[in-house]
């Protein structure tokens, strides 16, 4: 399936594989390196980074690839997390069984929301998506339908289990979460290097020209939005099963802004950039937890400097390459030399 990638595809894929191999070795390295309590603190942090990486990748398809200013992504993350929490605690569904439901409910919610707003231009869309995340937050806090547990949220979510194996330790959680992140990288990479990914980029650059080339702009935007929400919903399942207690504050507007910043700072449309952004924004947040107030100052300052000096992000996307060199000079020209001379001389 992955056999015939073009030259730079091999390199990217090789690098990706290397990265995830290194990541796979981290828990063992922490144990061998004698980290305190088997590196539980570090693994917890890496687990959060992994979930946010998958989540940011799902936002990247909307914000980075299609260029839609969407700052309400945690609304879909919340949908997924609450779907899992409710089905698991109230209806005793196994966590993995809730995964598709979490994804689909977030996708359906996104689809219905997006239908009337999908044609809006950048700034208007931004305002509406901010509204969405606020409304979802308020609905959760007010214990909507008596299901969400209000401000206390839902606790006692079970560990995911498959074939008798429970992902009960931070280490096993780590493998699950980073496995999901790796899958996200692979699928979004394939998507980016395809007709679908190209269409989103045409729309980002110029939607009038894109529709003039035969691209159904609304349909593609809607698909990207729904797909991103689907993935965010599934990330929500992993999140709920990882921290086991969810509450509305985990999905507030601030988290949405952080996600937005991960994509923009990392490099809009760049998978590697989004991964780096997740490590920087989530990881450093944790490292600097001791300097609570200064943390935001540094964060804000870094944002401003980035937007001034490197607006394209830390690692902007590389251009797709095509193996077309052998085709140069093989096809006839419509501008024959004699014609051109004749016209020029006339």
């Amino acid at each position, binding site marked *: *399936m*992955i056999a*015939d990638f073009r030259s730079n595809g091999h390199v990217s894929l090789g690098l990706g594989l290397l990265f995830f191999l290194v990541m796979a070795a981290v828990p063992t390295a922490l144990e061998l390196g004698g980290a305190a309590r088997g590196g539980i603190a570090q693994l917890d942090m890496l687990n959060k980074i992994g979930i946010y990486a998958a989540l940011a990748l799902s936002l990247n398809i909307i914000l980075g690839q299609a260029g839609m200013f969407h700052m309400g992504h945690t609304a879909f993350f919340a949908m997924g997390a609450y779907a899992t929490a409710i089905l698991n605690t109230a209806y005793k569904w196994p966590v993995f069984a809730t995964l598709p439901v979490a994804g689909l409910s977030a996708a359906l919610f996104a689809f219905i929301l997006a239908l009337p707003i999908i044609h809006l231009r950048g700034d208007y869309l931004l305002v509406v998506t901010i509204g969405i995340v606020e409304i979802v937050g308020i609905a959760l806090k007010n214990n909507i339908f008596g299901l969400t547990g209000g401000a206390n949220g839902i606790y006692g979510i079970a560990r995911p289990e498959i074939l008798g194996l429970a992902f009960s330790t931070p280490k096993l959680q780590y493998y699950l979460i980073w496995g999901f992140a790796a899958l996200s990288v692979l*699928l979004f990479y*394939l*998507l980016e290097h*395809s*007709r*679908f*990914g*190209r*269409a989103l*980029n*045409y729309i980002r*650059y*110029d939607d*009038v*020209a*894109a*529709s*003039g*080339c*035969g*691209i*159904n*702009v609304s349909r593609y935007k809607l*698909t990207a939005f729904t*797909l991103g929400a689907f993935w965010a919903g599934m990330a929500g399942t992993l999140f709920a099963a990882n921290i086991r207690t969810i509450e509305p504050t985990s999905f507030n507007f601030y988290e949405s802004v952080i996600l937005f910043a991960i994509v923009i700072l990392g490099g809009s449309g760049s998978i590697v950039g989004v991964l780096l952004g997740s490590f920087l924004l989530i990881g450093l947040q944790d490292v600097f937890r001791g300097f609570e107030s200064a943390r935001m100052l540094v964060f804000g300052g870094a944002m401003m400097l980035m937007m001034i000096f490197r607006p394209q992000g830390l690692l902007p996307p590389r*251009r*797709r*390459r*095509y*193996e*077309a060199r052998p*085709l*140069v*000079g*093989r*096809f*006839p*020209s*419509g*501008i*024959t030399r004699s*014609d*051109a*001379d004749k*016209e*020029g001389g*006339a």
Partner: protein
Amino acid sequence: MSLISLQNLLKTFGGLVAVTGVSFEVEENSIVGLIGPNGAGKTTVFNIITGNYRPDSGEVIFNGKDITGRAPHDIVRMGIARTFQNIRLFQDMSVLENVLAGCHCRMKAGLFSSMFRPPSQRREEKEAVERAMRELAFVGLDAQFANLAGNLSYGNQRLLEIARALASDPLFLILDEPAGGMNDQETAALTALIRSIQQRGITILLIEHDMNLVMRVCRKLVVLEYGAMIAEGTPAAIKANPQVIEAYLGAED
């Protein structure tokens, strides 16, 4: 037989009448020129045909079907391709990818086949790259395929727009001031190119200010002034039409 027929088009923007009572036909495999002073409504007529504007009244019949008010992407799929007066390339993408945009509507791969890559998807991609390279060679830009579109010269950007439009396999091609910003040599090459496009069996409607080019390639001319048609006929007849001379060509002689 006429490929496209415009019937009594009316388009207003607020109180401004942009186009009124415009009716003409374009014969299959002919080259028709649409001329007139700046602001005469030429581009508005184009935008009505391509679905970017919906006319207040009137009809556009293409290939026997009423396409009035259809969405632009549907109209491309039905076989009408266009270039833009103010070049609208995807500047930060490669030359080849710009042409692949034109191939888009003739491809099928959706979300899932993009993710899971069955053999049909890979074959389609390969064919699309080949088709795009064929169109690039046709306009003489195949060696530049890996360059950024924004790095091409102005004249070459216009040619790239034509290649992108041709990649959608049109029956009818609409060129909006293709010679704008071109030097004499480039215009001569463009003239040859337009004839080659016609030889491929494609019908062409052309807006152009370069009278030399228009008179040379068009079989029929339609003249607009203040949104209304003031003349229609062969280049020779148009040249001799006193109303046209007064409105437009008079400045030339």
